[in-house]
Each structure stands twice: as structure tokens, then as C-alpha cells.
């Protein structure tokens, strides 16, 4: 033989790389029910599909080489539902998976490989921030600065599961990802509370800085928060099931679950005829789409608008629906940002858009103006104008003013109104007040007559009569109409592949 030493050394080095950090740290995680980096990869990928790349890399600094297996990031190739993906998992037990020269090079290599080969890039973030000894001084900072490139375009889907304290590098990746799921208890921020307290003498609770409530409700940077690592990794799998592997492919078709569309008649029970009354549009969406196929994006953020993946007749769609349950369905700054980012994502990955409109207008007032609402409305509008995927829209009840246009009015490949639709510039009572100056409390009869006058000509048949809508439908036929129209508008000339004008649209607004 004579190869024993080589074989033995090879085995020993593999074992050292796979051991990750200290036994104590690994045991602490296990006791807390938190998976380690390698367990996360196993939970994410199809069983037995992982093949590691870069396992022998260690710290660029010789004095840390012995305690930096894989340099704190486990990278490689695997499959999700039989489809190839690239995955990087930060190993917090190894030097806090702090960002350093070699693990930075590993991550860069992996995402470039994902783009070159047209497969999704999945990042599992948990990072203590920069590895300060490695990048202190001019040469350290210079090397890091030279090596990192953030010129991402939406060529392949990026999904980030943010599963622990995440500062610096882990947060940068999440910030340019298409989808971010957080485990409750994880934190996403620029720097750690310790750096904050040293730099600006501010004592901060990490949850207040970047916990799941902050990121799902205030900033909208995270799309979803769940209780466990396993749920987060399942969410990544679910998310990717709606998308193609890259921008030059179509999303995969799914089987249509039994019973889909069976309860369509219940739509009439859910939606009040009286336009002042509210309801939860998510319940309506569930009746329209394939059973259990709804996958909301940013559900806790900008809640007057629902953005959700779903399937109709097995085909992936992106649904944008006003939700009267919150703020009466009025569009505000957050819901406009949410619409813009969702349109950019769907359009980049050839997912048709479906608008469901029931909107009293944009939420006016000082708060919105101070937060640049006109710019947000136009961003949303610009995204809709640039979209080249099929756009279908349904006006359910009211749809007023500029919000009518933002919700696809006059901008759709096919637009239908429910027979309950009500289309105008503003609510008739608002028009009556503004134009006549009448006070409804002192002159109720005159005011009522003015409201009646401004209520004329707002019906779906008025719109369809001038061919400004393409059909008027019974709400119970919505699923059938959408399914048929998705088939008709398949963009067969390009096989459904769009122009992707928003591929470089920013990931944060």
C-alpha cells in the first residue's frame, strides 16, 4: 500500500472540517433546539443531495487556521424538489461565522457559480459581523474592499433564511435577497449591540434594533417570521417552488390539488355589497386559487395590500390585492413599496401578475407626504409600466382615481369587472362635498341629491360599454376567468420569458 498516511490525513482533515466549532457551543445549540450549519443544510436539501465545496478552506491568518474549519461557512451544491441549488450556511460556532478574507471569497465564488449556471442561491445567515483582527489596518480593509462585489441582478432567485444574530455580511446578503425568512429570536442589523454601545454609547436591545417584528412590520425587509429553523428552511423550499431556477426559464407547473375552486360560490358571502363595509381579501384569494397554494410575501407589512404567490390551474401567479380589512384597503407608502418590489420580483422571474382591486384611493395626509408618497406611487406605477409578464386585473368593488390606474386600470392585458364594481375618480360623497360645498348635516336633502348625481355612470357596464374593461363577470367565475386568460396570454413568442427591465431594480427603497 504505502498510502495509509495520505488516507489517514485526508480522513482527519475531513473530520476536522465537518466538526465545526467547539463541542460546548454545538451542545448549547442542540439544547436550545437550534440547528447547526450542517444540520440546517440537511434539513433544507433533498436527502443525501449535498456536495460540499471549499471544505478545507481555513482562515487567511495562520494563527487562526486551526480553529476556523471551512472558515466558518459551509458551502456547496444540492437539490430542492429535485432541482439544483447552491447553498451557503454560516457556521456561527466557528468564530461566530465572522466575515473574513477566505469565507468572503467562498461566498462570492458560490453566488457567481449559481448565476453562471442558472440555479437559485440560498444563504443561511447567522453572522457576528466582521472578523476584526483579519480586516484591521490598511491591508486588511483593502483586501476586504477589493474582494466584495454587490452588483447583484435578478438572474437567479436569492433566498435568505436569517436564523440567528446577523450583523455585517449576513445582513448584507439578506438585504439584496428576493426572499428573507427570519426565525423569531434572530436579529438582522448592520452592527451588533456591542459595537453600537462602543461607537455611539447607545445601549440597545437587539430585538428593538432588528428583531422579527421590526423587520416584518416596520421595515418590510423580512418577508416572513417563523418559530423554528425547520419552518424557516421549509419556507425557503416553498418559496422556490413558485419560481424558475433562473430568469430564462418558466416557473415549474404543479399538480392541481383536488377540491381547488370547489368553494367559489362562497365569495358572495365574504364580500359585502355595501362599499363602506370591510372584509379580509385573503379569504377571497384562497377561494380563487389552487387549494393551499397561497404563499403571502410581507404579510405583516403594508397590510392594506396583499402580495402573494399562488397557483391557478397549477401555474404560478403573483397576486396583488387591496385588503379593505386594513386601512380600508387604501394604498400607503409601505403598501406602494411592497407592490413595487413584488412586481419587480415576479417580472424578473416570468411570473404573471394578477391584480384584485377594491381601493378607496391613496391614503392622504401629512404622514404620507413626509414619507415621499408621491414618489412611492410613481415607483409602483413605473414598475407596472415596465412589467412584461402577462398582467390580468379584476375590479371587485370600488376602484378610484390614480389607485385605479396603479391597480392595473387601463394597464392590463385583460381586465374584468365583477358586477359589483364601482369605478370613478373619488367616492361620490367626496365629490359632492368638494364640488358643491354642501354640509350634509345642515342640508341633507340637497347633499343626498348631489351624491346621487355623482354616483351615476360608475358601473362596470359603463366601463365595459366603452371597451375600457374587457368583460363583466360574476365573482363566482373569477377562478375560471383567470385560468382561461392565463392560458390565452402566455407570451408564446418567447415561451413566456419576459424582457426583465427591472432586473437591476434596487432591493430596498
Amino acid at each position, binding site marked *: 500500500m504505502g498510502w495509509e498516511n495520505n488516507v489517514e490525513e485526508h480522513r482527519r482533515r475531513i473530520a476536522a472540517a465537518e466538526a465545526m466549532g467547539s463541542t460546548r457551543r454545538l451542545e448549547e445549540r442542540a439544547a436550545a433546539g437550534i440547528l447547526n450549519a450542517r444540520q440546517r443544510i440537511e434539513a433544507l436539501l433533498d436527502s443525501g443531495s449535498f456536495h460540499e465545496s471549499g471544505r478545507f478552506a481555513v482562515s487567511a491568518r495562520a494563527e487562526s487556521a486551526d480553529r476556523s474549519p471551512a472558515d466558518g461557512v459551509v458551502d456547496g451544491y444540492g437539490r430542492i424538489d429535485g432541482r439544483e441549488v447552491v447553498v451557503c450556511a454560516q457556521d456561527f460556532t466557528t468564530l461566530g461565522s465572522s466575515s473574513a478574507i477566505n469565507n468572503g471569497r467562498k461566498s462570492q465564488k458560490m453566488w457567481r457559480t449559481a448565476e453562471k449556471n442558472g440555479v437559485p442561491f440560498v444563504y443561511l445567515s447567522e453572522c457576528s459581523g466582521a472578523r476584526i483582527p483579519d480586516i484591521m489596518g490598511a491591508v486588511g480593509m483593502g483586501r476586504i474592499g477589493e474582494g466584495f462585489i454587490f452588483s447583484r441582478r435578478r438572474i437567479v432567485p436569492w433566498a435568505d433564511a436569517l436564523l440567528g444574530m446577523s450583523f455585517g455580511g449576513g445582513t448584507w446578503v439578506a438585504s439584496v435577497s428576493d426572499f428573507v425568512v427570519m426565525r423569531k429570536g434572530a436579529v438582522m442589523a448592520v452592527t451588533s449591540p456591542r459595537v453600537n454601545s462602543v461607537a455611539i454609547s447607545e445601549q440597545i436591545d437587539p430585538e428593538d434594533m432588528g428583531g422579527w417584528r421590526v423587520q416584518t412590520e416596520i421595515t418590510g425587509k423580512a418577508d416572513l417570521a417563523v418559530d423554528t429553523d425547520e419552518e424557516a428552511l421549509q419556507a425557503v423550499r416553498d418559496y422556490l417552488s413558485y419560481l424558475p431556477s433562473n430568469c430564462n426559464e418558466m416557473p415549474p407547473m404543479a399538480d392541481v390539488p383536488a377540491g381547488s375552486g370547489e368553494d367559489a360560490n362562497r365569495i358572495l358571502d365574504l364580500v359585502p355589497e355595501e362599499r363602506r*363595509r*370591510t372584509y379580509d381579501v385573503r379569504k377571497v384569494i384562497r377561494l380563487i386559487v389552487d387549494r393551499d397554494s397561497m404563499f403571502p410575501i410581507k404579510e405583516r407589512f403594508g397590510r392594506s395590500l396583499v402580495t402573494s404567490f399562488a397557483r391557478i390551474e397549477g401555474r404560478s401567479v403573483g397576486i396583488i390585492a387591496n385588503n379593505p380589512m386594513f386601512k*380600508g384597503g387604501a394604498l400607503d407608502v409601505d403598501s406602494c413599496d411592497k407592490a413595487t418590489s413584488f412586481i419587480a420580483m415576479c417580472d424578473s422571474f416570468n411570473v404573471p401578475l394578477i391584480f384584485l382591486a377594491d381601493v378607496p384611493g391613496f391614503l392622504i395626509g401629512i404622514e404620507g407626504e413626509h414619507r415621499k408618497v408621491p414618489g412611492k406611487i410613481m415607483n409602483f406605477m413605473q414598475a407596472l409600466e415596465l412589467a412584461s409578464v402577462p398582467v390580468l386585473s379584476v375590479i371587485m368593488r370600488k376602484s378610484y382615481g390614480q389607485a385605479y390606474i396603479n391597480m392595473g386600470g387601463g394597464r392590463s392585458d385583460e381586465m374584468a369587472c365583477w358586477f359589483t364594481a364601482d369605478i370613478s375618480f373619488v367616492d361620490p360623497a367626496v365629490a359632492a362635498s368638494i364640488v358643491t360645498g354642501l354640509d350634509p348635516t345642515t342640508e341633507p336633502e340637497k347633499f343626498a341629491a348631489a351624491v346621487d348625481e355623482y354616483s351615476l355612470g360608475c358601473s362596470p357596464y359603463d366601463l365595459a360599454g366603452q371597451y375600457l374593461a374587457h368583460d363583466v363577470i360574476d365573482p363566482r367565475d373569477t377562478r375560471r376567468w383567470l385560468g382561461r386568460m392565463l392560458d390565452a396570454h402566455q407570451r408564446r413568442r418567447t415561451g413566456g420569458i419576459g424582457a426583465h427591465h427591472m432586473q437591476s431594480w434596487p432591493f430596498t427603497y
Partner: protein
Amino acid sequence: MADIDIKSEIAGKVWLIEAEVGQGVEEDDAVIILESMKMEIPVAAPVSGKITEILVEKDEAVAEGQTVARMEG
């Protein structure tokens, strides 16, 4: 039993007060209904619990973010 503020997420006028002090409510139950944007907009309980204070009156104008009631959850 922490005190929880129930805040309006929209400016408007109080149209109906749906809950009383001492009343048990479920998460997402309407506590106050505002009139805003010509719609009846519920201000809902953020968690399940018991109403401890109602801080507004019918027809009162409320601002975005204003606490309109309190509860313990």
C-alpha cells in the same frame, strides 16, 4: 397581564364604539370603528384579552397612531 395600547393605524372619525371596559375580546375583534376614506374601518384588538380603557368618544377625530383604547392580554 401587560397593559397593551390599541392604536389606530389611520386618521379618521370615531363612528362606533364596539367594546366596553371589562369586556373580553379575541385577537382581531373590532374595538372601535372609524369612518375614514368613506369606509368603516375597524380598530382591532392586537391580542386576545380584556378591555381596560376606552379613550375616545363617538364623533371624535383621531390621528394615525393614536391610542384609542387599552387592554390587558
